[in-house]
């Protein structure tokens, strides 16, 4: 918004403002698109984990290990991780913008949000794609019972 009171000459054509990417616009679109996708993904996740097969009773270490061994579920959970984390962070950014009046505190909170999200994204991705329920050479006392067949 310009509060400048100097006026252009009559019939001066409007100069299109080009100032890089409009993050507010893409943030707004991202919230809508990821929201719709998350509804589908989350209910799919709940249906498979809590309803199919033995329902809630089937969830244990072996069940999770089995799911994460399948590339389909790896990518499914990766999509959930990325979409939900950034969706949540963007929502927090919005709340910070709405309620924090001081620019310095706002910058600190934005930096904290950005860095924590980046760390969580890297950690989550690492777990999803490198998870090994039966690490080779591990103490047999500590690994899950189903590892006996593999090790």
């Amino acid at each position, binding site marked *: 918004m310009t509060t400048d009171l100097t006026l252009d000459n009559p019939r001066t054509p409007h100069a299109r403002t080009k100032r890089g990417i409009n993050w*507010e616009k893409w*943030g707004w679109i991202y919230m809508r698109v990821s929201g719709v996708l998350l509804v589908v993904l989350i209910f799919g996740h709940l249906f498979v984990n809590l309803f199919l097969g033995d329902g809630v009773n089937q969830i244990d270490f072996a069940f999770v290990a089995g799911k994460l061994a399948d590339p389909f579920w790896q990518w499914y959970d990766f999509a959930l991780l990325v979409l939900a984390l950034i969706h949540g962070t963007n929502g927090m950014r919005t709340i910070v913008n*709405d*309620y924090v009046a001081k620019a310095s505190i706002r910058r600190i909170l934005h930096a904290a949000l950005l860095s924590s999200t980046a760390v969580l994204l890297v950690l989550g991705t690492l777990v999803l794609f490198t998870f090994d329920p039966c690490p080779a050479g591990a103490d047999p006392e500590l690994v899950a019972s189903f590892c006996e067949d593999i090790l």
Partner: protein
Amino acid sequence: MATAPAEVGAVQEFTVTVIIRRFDPENDTEPYWQDFDVQMYSTDRVLDALHKVKWEQDGTLSFRRSCAHGICGSDAMRINGRNRLACKTLIKDLDITKPIYIEAIKGLPLEKDLIVDMEPFFASYRAVQPFLQANSKPDKERIQTIEQRARFDDTTKCILCAACTSSCPVFWTDGQYFGPAAIVNAHRFIFDSRDDAAQVRLDILNDKEGVWRCRTTFNCSEACPRGIEVTKAISEVKQAMLRGRP
């Protein structure tokens, strides 16, 4: 049944306490609340209570009002925590068993008592170019169908009272945000079939501080004394922006 029930429909009289947030920049460092008891009738409005205070109790009370009939948009204020026009709010519609709290609208610099500096509000109004820009040169008048006129009918009702903009939580913390009223008045021309500068206005509002700041909290729609569906208008501008044309 011979004796007519004279009391039915009769004008009732009651005493109301109004608590007004006062501020005199020449004597006060901080605003403070001051209460007044006024004798009111059931036909009176909040504006009448303010008049009674100013004319009979404390002449230093300052507030804006021009037409006093809901057209000029001068007397928007926060009454019991909600933005309303003092001249359109009947006292009897409020809870008169409790005091009525009256303060200036929020988010704009307080000047005195119930008067705020409206310049930031009008600056963003001016920024959306709220005037018809038609390039065509018709022989007679510019023809418009009933449907074309109905498209933007709702947003023609704005009286620029600032009740919506000063009820918007985004505007309270981010004074750079255009605010609902400016977007409503952009909407009025963006969707006008006779106007040729819709792209310019969409471009102005497709700003970091433009329509994307809107969180659809509906405070503006609730505050509007003319019943404009403000949030809907803002959403229509967002949609037009995504489509790239009105």
